[in-house]
Structures are given as C-alpha cells and as structure tokens.
C-alpha cells in the first residue's frame, strides 16, 4: 500500500465509515469507538461475517458493481476475513474505483 493510495482513499474511507456507522448504529457512540483505518470489523465493531453480506450490498449500491466485496474476499483466508479492518475495505474500494477509471 502506498502513500498515494492512502491520500486518494480519504474520501472513500469517509464514505465507507459512513456506511459502516449506519450498519452499526448508535453502538459506536455508546462504545466510544472512533472508526479508524485499523478498526477491526469483528473485534472492534462487533460485526459478524454474516454482516459483510449487508456491507457488500451497501458498497455496491453506493459505488456500483465495480465494487464487489464478495469477489474480493474470495481470495481471503477465513482468519483474514475475521480480522478484516475498515482500512482494508476502504483500500479495496478505492482500488476498485481506480481500476474502473
């Protein structure tokens, strides 16, 4: 991952955080969790892998079919899916959008 990617990803990251916050709801406020790139999907946000299904749908709705989380995660080991961070998702989305440009 390069710095350039990270810079380009800022907007995408905010967008992903917005979707995730919608998914998690009020819980983030109460838990006092600030969503950052290293925030873990399961461990920090308490989401299950089944919730990725919903997130995948939300991402596709927002960014179009170019963003296919299902396809992307097919290459991941189960451990990696469980340890997935918000930053990884945002990076994937940013990358997918760039490739499509």
């Amino acid at each position, binding site marked *: 991952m390069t710095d350039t990617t990270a810079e380009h990803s800022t907007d995408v990251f905010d967008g992903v955080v917005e979707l995730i916050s919608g998914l998690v709801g009020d819980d983030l406020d*109460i838990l006092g969790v600030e969503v950052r790139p290293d925030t873990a999907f399961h*461990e920090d946000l308490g989401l299950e892998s089944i919730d990725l*299904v919903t997130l*995948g749908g939300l991402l596709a709705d927002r960014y179009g079919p170019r963003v*296919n989380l*299902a*396809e992307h*995660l*097919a290459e991941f080991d*189960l451990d990696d899916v469980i340890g997935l961070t918000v930053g990884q998702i945002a990076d994937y989305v940013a990358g997918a959008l760039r490739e499509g440009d």
Partner: protein
Amino acid sequence: MDASQAREPVAVVGMAVMLPGAPDLDTYWHNLRTGHDAITDVPPDRRDPHFHGDVPDPAAPLPPDRTYCHRGGFLAPFSLDAAGLGIMPNSVDTIEPDQLLTLRVASAAVADAGGLPALGDAGKVGVILGRGGYIGPRMVGLEQRVRTVRTVLRVVAELNPGMGEGELAELRAALLDPLGPVQPESAINLVPNLAASRVANRLDLRGPAYTVDAACASSLLAVDQAIGELTTRRCDAVLAGGVYHGHDDTFWAVFSQLRALSPTQGIRPLSADADGLLIGEGAGVVVLRRLSDARRDGDRVYAVIRGVGTASDGRTQSLFNPDSAGQRVALRRAWSAAGLDPAVPDSVGLVEAHSTGTPVGDAAELSALGEVFGAPPGASAVIGSVKSMIGHTMPAAGIAGLVKAVLAVHHGVLLPTLHCADPNPLLEPTRFHVLDAAKPWEGVGPRRAAVNAFGFGGINAHVVVEQAPDTPIRRPARVVERERVLRLAAHDPAELARLLDEHGDCPPDEPVGDPTGRFRLGVVGPTAKRLTVAQRVLARADQPGWTWSSGDVWFTGTPLLREPGAKTAFVFPGLEAEFAPRIDDVAALLGEEPPGAETGSVPEHVAAVADASMLLDRALARLGVRPDGLVGHSIGEWTAAVLARMFTGDRPGIGLDGFPMPAVDYLALGCAVDEAERGIADEPDVVVSHDNAPRQSVVCGPREAIERLAERFRAAGVFARPLPFSTGFHTPMMAPYVDPYLHAIRATGMRAGTLPVYSATTADRYPDDSDSLLRLSADHLVKPVRFREVVARMSADGYRVFVLMGAGQLGSFVSDSLDDAPHLVINAASSVRPGLAQLRRVATALWVEGADPDLAALEQSTKAGSTASQKDNASAVGEIPVRVTSPTLTVDPEARGRFAPSRGRPDLPAGLPADIAGELSALIADTDATVRAVTAAVRSRRAPAIRPAPAALPAQRALPAAEPGAVRTTLLRVSVADMPYLRGHRFFRQRADWPDETDRRPVVPATTLVEWAQRATERAWPGELAVAVRDIRFTRWLIAAPSQDVEITMTRPVPGGPVQVRLGEFAAMTVDLADAYPAASAPAPHPGPATGPALTPVEIYGGRQMFHGPQFQGLTEVTAHDGDRAHGQIKVLPAPGCVLDNVGQMLGCWLQARVDTRILAFPTRVDSIVFHGPPPPLGAVVDCLADARIPDEAAVEMDAVVSHAGRVWATITGWHDIRLDCDHTDHGVYAFPRDHALSRPQADGTWLAQDRWTTLASRDVFVGVYLSAPERAAYAAVPPRGQRTWLLGRVAAKDAVRGWLAARPDEWGTETLFPAEVLLTGDGERLVVRGHHGRALPDLRVTLTPAGPTAVTARVERTTGDD
C-alpha cells in the same frame, strides 16, 4: 540496637480468611477499605430464646444462664467442597465446624501462595494454629449424649419416684432419638487439635502440625512458633493462623459474667465511649517462608515479618486485668528482634491494636503503646482495630489483625476504624490517631505496621510487619485477581444509575438493588471504559424497548425471562469452518481432562464439537443454567439428542468412523435460500442443503459444479465460500449411504427426549415415538437443514434466550433469523477469551434477562482443587453445607406428652382447624375409653400379674358362636387407634406432625400374630394353654393403617389335638393346647464369654439398627459369642408379642454386624416355639441365647432359648428371616430417610437413582420410604413392567429436590426433608413438585431422564410458577 542481630525476615507469601462479612480475602480487603460493619444480631438459628431472654436490669447480677448481649460477628453459612478436600460428605456433620473452617481457609491460603508445589518439600511444611479449648457444637452434642440425658433421667426419676424402669427407658430413647445415630468412627472428629492435624492430613503436609492456646494472643503465638520453625530451618514453610468458631452459650456466659460484653450492643475500640466487646468468629491463615527462599523462587511477597515479641505479665494484680508492663516487654522484644527502634519518628505507620473496646483493656494498651513508641516531634501514625468491624474473634483475633496489617502494607493504604468519632483521650499524648476513612499510605522508607494481640491471663504478643523489598516475581502469578461482575437491579432507571455510581468502582459479589426490579444492568470486569459505556447505556434507559448487549455490558428494562412462558434454548453447533473454543479452564473447573480438538477427519471433528458442547452443558448446569429445550445445527442435532437421552450413550457415537459419504462439496452463500435456489436452477446436480439464516444458505453438489457456482455467485456480488469439509449430509446425495447410519441408530435405539428437542429437518419438535424418531433420523441425513425456520418456530414457542454451545458463527444465524423478535443470543464459549471468562459473561447476560445463575460456581474449587490432595477426583459432587448450630436436647416429638397426666393422649399439633381438632380429641378420648374398657374386661378374666399384655386382643368386635368342636372364627379390628403399641412398630419414619398414618406403615409384628393366635385359641377352648406354636408361616404384612378387619380362623379337626390357626391372608400356624406347660429339657444355657463389645440400646435404637419405637424397644444389651452365638437381654414390655419380637431384633443386630449386604431381615417362618411357662411379668428382664446361621445370602436363621430367672421360658427352633436387598448405605436411607438419599448427585447437577432391588419385597421397602399415599396409589396403577423405572424416577426426583433445597440453606434453611414431604405429580418426563402436608416448597419442576434400563436421572429446576 544492632541490626545484625535481627533474625532473618520471614515473608508472607499467601493468605486467606473467613471472617464475619468476608468469605474470602478479596472481600476482607474490600471491607477493610470501605469500613464495612459486619456486626449483626445473633442469627435466629443460633439464638436460644431463654439464654437471650429479657434481662430486666443489665446492671443487676446476672444468672449464668442468661446474657444481656445479643449482637456479634457471625460467619455467613458456609459450605465445604467435601469431595475436593477429601472429606467424606456424610462425615461433614460429625466434624467440629472449626476444623472444616480451618481446612477451607488453609487450603485457600495455600492456593493463594501458588499451590502446594510452591511450598517445596511437604516434609518441611508445618501447620501451627491458635485454637482455644472452647466447646464447639459437636462436642455439645456429645455432652448431651454422655451426660445430659443421664442427668435428665436422674432428675425425672427423683421427681417421679413411682416412675418405672420401662418409662425411664422410653424417655431415654425419646431423648436420644432426635440426636440421630451414634457414629463411633466419628468420635475422633471432636478432638480439638484436629483443627491443625486435619489440614496436614488433607494437604499431606509432614512438618509439625499442632494448635496453641494463648487465649486471644493465640494466633500471634502461632506466628511466633512458625517463625521459630523457619529460622531454625526445621520448616521451609509454615501455615500459621488461628480459628475461633462456635459462639457457644457457655462462652458468652463467661463474658457476660465478666461484664466484658457491651451492654449497649456495640463494639467501639479506641473510642471514648467504649463499654465492652462483641464476640466475633472466623479463621485466618498466612503462609510463611524465609524471605530468601521466597525471593529465590520469585514468590509474590505480600510483606515481611521483621520480628515477633512475646511476654507474660508475671505476677500481677489479677489474671483478668491486662497489664501494660507485660505488654511493653512484648513490644520491645519484637522491635528488638526486628533490629529497629520503635521510638524513632518514622518507625511505624499503622498499629493494629488489640483494643477490644473494654475501657480497662484500652487504657492499658494505649499506655504501653505510648511508652514504647513515644511521641517524638513529627511522628504520626494511624492506630485502629478491625474488631470494630467484625467483633473480637478471640484466638483468631491476632490473625485477623495481622492479615489486615499485611494487606495495608502491601496495598499502601491506611485503614479506618468504625465507631470512633470520639477517640479515647489517652490517644492524645501519643503519636497515634484513628482514621474514619481509608487513605493512601504516603511517606518515605518502607511501610511498616505492627500488630498487638493480648490474651487473658497475661500473655502478650506483638508483630512487626514491613513492606516487602522489591522483588521481581519470576513465578507467574498463579492466582489471578478474579474478574469482578457488577450486577444491579432497580425499579427505575434513575435508581439504577445511582447504584451504578455507588457500586461501579467496587462491585460486591452479589447483585445489588431490588432483585425484582426490571431495570437490570450487568458489567463484567467493570473497567473505567466499560463503566462509561454503562453510563451511556443508562442515559437512554428511558427509551421504550432499549436494550444493550455489547462490550461486556448488558442492560434491559424488559427482562426476557421474566416474560411468562419465556424459555431458554441450548443450541448445538455442527461442523463449522472454525473450531477453536477455549474451554480447557472450564474442564479444569469441573475436574475433567481438556477435551480433544482434533478436526482432521470428519469423525474427529464431530466428536470434538460434541465433546465441547457437552462440557459446556455440564459447566452451565453447575451455574444452574439449564435449557427448556434443545436444538442443533446439522450434526449438532445428534449432540442435542444425546443430552435429551433420545440416544443411548454419553456421546453421539454412532460410529462414523469408516462410514461412507458421497464426494460432494458445500458452498456457503451470503444470500437467502430463494436466491440460492434461483442461482442453482441450471445445475441439476446441486441442491440447497442449509437454509441457515436470511443472509446465509449453503448449497451442495459435485466439486466442479460448486466451483462454477462460486464464481457465478461472486460475480453477482454474492459471498460464496466453499466449506472445508465434505460430508454430503442433508442432501439426497447422501441417500445411498444412509443405511449403515440407520442401522447403528436402530442398534442403540431412540426414545422420546427428556426435554423438548427441535428438528431443523421439520422445523418442529421431535416426535415422541421411536418409529417416527427413526424415520426422522433418516430424513435428517438426506433432507435440508431448515435452521432459519426452526429458530423462528422456537421463537413462536416462547424461546427467548439462545445459548450457543460452542464458539462459532452459529449465533449470528440465530440473531439474523430472529431479527426484531425479542431475543438474546450468547455463545457459551469463545475462541479468543478464556472459557471461564466467557461463562462469566453468559451468566451475567442471563442474570440481566431475569435468570439466577450461580456466578460463584465459576470461582469455587479452582483454588481448593489445586491444593487438595491427590485423591481429588473429577466428580464435582458439590459443596456440603456445614451445620454450625448446636443441637438442642429435646424429646422426640412423638414422645411429647407421654408422661403427662392424661397419658396416652398426645398433644394435638398446633394450628389445626377447630373442627378437626375437636374430632381428633373426641377420637382420642374414645380410643382411651375403649382401651380401658377392654383392659378392664381382660383383667377381670385373667390373673393380671402374669399377663404381659393386658390388652392382648383389644377391640375384638365379635366372638361369634362357632360350630362346636371344629372351626372357630373371630374377627379382629386391627388399627393404630385400637392398638396404640403399633406406633412402636412403624416401618417408615415421617415428619413428627405427619397426618397420614399410612405413610408410616404401622405393621403388626409377626410375633404379635403368634401371641394373638395363642390368646385366641386359649379363649376359644377355655381352660387350655397354648403351649407351643408350630409351622408358622408369615405370608403378608398386616398393615394397621388404614385399619382393617382380620378374621382369625381356628380349626381343630381332632378334638384335643392341635389347632390350625389362620390369621386372614397374613399368617398361618399350628397351636398346641395343653393343660400345663411342658418342662424344659435343660437348664438355661450360659452364653460363655463375649467376643466383642456389647451393643447398647443407644446403638440399636438410637442408631436405628432396629426401626422399633419405645413400645418394642426391649433389648437392653446384645453381645456376640463364639460359634455364631448371640446373647441378648430383653426387658418385658406390655405390647403383645414383644418379647419374641425382641428375639427377632437380636437376630437382626447379629446379622447387621456380620454381613454388609441384605442386612434388612424380617421373619417369614418359624418351625416351632415351645413355651415352658407363663409369659414373664412386665418389667422383668429375660435372657435370650441364639445360635444363628446364614444358610444363603437371602436368609438368616436361628435356634434360640429364652430364659427368665434362670429357667427356660421358650425354646425356638428354625426361625427363618428373609433378607432384603439393603446394604448399610441403603439402610441409612431406610433408618434416617430425612438425612440420606438413595440417589447420588452427579457432576452435572442431576441425581441418579439406580435399581438395587432384586426382589419385589425389597423394592417395596423403598416404596414406603419414598412415596406418600397418593404417590403409592399412582405407583400401584403403573403396569408392573414399568413400576421399577417409575419408582426410580420418583426416588431420583425427590432426592434431586431435597438436594436442591439443601444446597440453598440461605433460602430454605437447613431443615432436611423426608422424601414424602416432596409430592410429585405428573406423568412422563416432567414432574410437578409440591410440598406435601404443610411443607412449603419453591416452584420447581423435575425432568427425568432414563439412564439405561435400570437407572433414572432427575434434574430439578425452578419455574416461574406459570408452567
């Protein structure tokens, strides 16, 4: 002072206490810091109303049997992990409680020190405990047996010179009976030094183990001895401490007479208004090692003991008054031993005073302290006394103070003293002051504290404690500070928020607030962060329907399980991609080996998943968490079936090994089932195998098709992940392979589950009949898993809480399926968190939802278990409550009023409705009149002097004129009312006020039938004597309640010849009539020397070797002699047949001493009894000598001779008893049903009753022990083939209920129940529990589970009362 003279410091490496308000060290520290006042009124069960009765003028001289003080420090009821500590559970009640208390505390202290291995060579570990010679409750019991009963009898005899030996014997039995059986082997348990020896014995420590007594200085003297053992290197570690337990009235009387107790009921040490002490109790133990050893081994060192000083007062004014000169010597010796100068300004930061709150004692102590420590400029130190919180714990006072001082030094906190707003003015010139709240211990140099303990008689001890030098702790901390749990309940959110503020920082062990409150908050490990989360959660508590279950915080305003009919489900996972539950610590808690976690092959994977689930099931049962129903996912249904006993066996072991499976793969899809179906429409070989949740389905098919589909689904944005196992279960592809599975299932059989089990094949409950079950087992393998639907179905059936019996993803399927429906899903295990920590969360979440799990069960025994002897076994039999009350000498309720002027009229039980009481009185009067009339009639006919049975044939209704010569009949009304002596021949014991006589089963003794036959023939053929009775057969019990009429038929075919007598269907015999008794052929034989000790009536009847009541308790002594001879002395009592019945009892006693099985014997036949004279007179003592033999294991026989005054009275030949299945343990249940159980508690909290009866007669005995009248009627209605299992179920259920109650002494008291007091109704696997005849019981139900063909287990659970 020369520092080089200082002895080597000794390190405190472990500690434990049980003190008022503090069951453990953590709580003690919490109480010390927060100033918890543990003083209470004397608990009702330890308060004698007379001793604590009114004292009109406390200042006037007090009678010694009174006290004016009614408060003190009392231990909460405590229990003992008897199995874990290697104590026989049935001996717990025979051991002085202080021994058990000490054992529990000592083993906790060892655990705190890191376990036995950390103490090094067991041969050099000592145990030295301060323990005064005070009387404990068990010794009080012995005193009553040994002396008080005798005294009462002597006094009663003096008051009633006319009272006969028989009556005194009755009274004696009535007094001894309530004391229970004598257990000679338990006598050792009263020996005081066992407080120390038992610790050494159970922990296998081989250094010196002994107690010391220096009154209130005992503990510190023990510490002094311990330090001596360590510095001389005779020991490498010593457990030192003290114990005081009992609060015996005599002890209180001494202090009352001395006026040492506070007349204002308050202990105010160091206060200007101190006016006396209050007595406390408890125990404390410290583990001491040489500091150099502790440092070498990297022990955690709480603090070091720098020096101990002891001194006696020498000759002073009195033994009672404390002397400050002696105290000063002790103080100076301790500081000298420490190599320190007490008078320098920073010598000490905290002094734990002995101060008991007596003005004289405080004055002497403050004077001594003032002189030794002085008040140099700049010197300031805190003084205090923990007695202000727990009372004066006597020999344990020093250890309570020492542990307090060590904790203060260790934590760097100066501690408060209660009730000292106005300090004693003698403190003013000293450097000392009292704190009213804890504060940090600031200052330079090592923190140093000192502890005083001064004993009666002028024995003084002083200990100097110092902060441990910084030592790296290399040895890993073995005892982790346990994670606290905060549980709060309130009726409104504001109150809940207030409780959170108050208790958040320091959660008590128990829930706080009104337990009925519906607003409930649980926080596990309340860190600042979690408490903040909790506050934010509560801030929204007003929002309707707001709940929270995340971040180790749970909250609700609508507890799910408080909803009527709400149920809890256990959900059993099948194979999942991830399988790594952390449960080894859970296994350790249960004393089990960690389960395997192999997932290499399908059989291994299946077994590992099931083993983990079943371990969690056992662990949850220990917490009291039990399911109302079960469901499994895929092969998780097999686990559910095993636990519901649908399958036999303890594991879903249907032999998967080597079983065939199709070569197909699974693909998990992130979509609903209809989308999955659409996606596979063009793949004919692929089917949907699982409808897991709205967002997950699984399809199955050949690998190539699955790979194609994976790509296609992903391209459409659907998550698709092949599963790492391929079994083909739940698909038609499995069909060709199903047979071997079904064959295996059929071989073990399937039956209705003991709990509702839900099938994901049908999305409904499993059926009950075995054919349907087998069909469904086949479908389960070939039809899809409809998990989403079955979860919805359970929700509709009222299931609200779903506990996932594993660590995987399955829970998210349940949540996803239930969406907005109210529910709680929680995993019983985690892959990241230790198992016990996860169970703590489960318990907390369930508590929030309204359940009452026992969180403490997670903490027990990890400590004790690690220190107890090697004999520790896996069976978690559970904690045995320790009875701490002294017995009260009282006559058996059945005997009350026996010597009242209206003798024979028992007092009516209190609380009877007036009409019933009236009827009863009339009935009793009527009966009396009948008996008197009959007695008078009989007396008028016969010479009374030689009649042992004046009412031999009472209430004889008719003596109809029979045909002359041949046959005579007479009708006899047999009832307890007409024959009160039958009260002494009841087979079964019941509660004293039990209204249903049939439940006691009064039975006419066989020998009474013989005497009735004799008397009836003598009456039918007047002038002739019944001189012999032959060919006697006893065929059925003649039961006297309900009353029945028995026809006595006498046939004399040959005039002048023998008479055939038949007593209904109960007995038959031949009676020889003659004009005179035949002479005996030989003089009365001599028994020769006895070969063993004599059995006394106390053992025979007190121990209920014989079940007989006073009316049949004739044996005064039984001895065994060479050649299978037994000799007995029998007092002649009035009941008919009593002498010969006692001959039978003697045979029973001989048998019980001789064999261990089938020890319950009843006569079935006698070849002949020849009488050589008239019955011996009432009150005489006759001799009986029997030659006994055991022809086989089902019988015992004898020939016997009964002599009176040196002449043979009766010769008995061929007496034959049948022996029933009953070993000594079973006999204990028969003899003392209230205190024993036939069933055994199992590790999982259930009770198991196993068949032990090879004959119906044997079983019938326990039908009577366990069942009450309505239950016996139900039993009789059960087809004979099913009766055994039915009975076992009732036995297990009653024992389970009784065990459940006994495990909750706080709630249900310590009174034990007779089995008949638990009334069970209902059929099948679920029984409703009610109290019988006035017994109040909680709302419970019992679930029965067959455990094989000859055993049943019962599980008891609380119900809401709605179902």
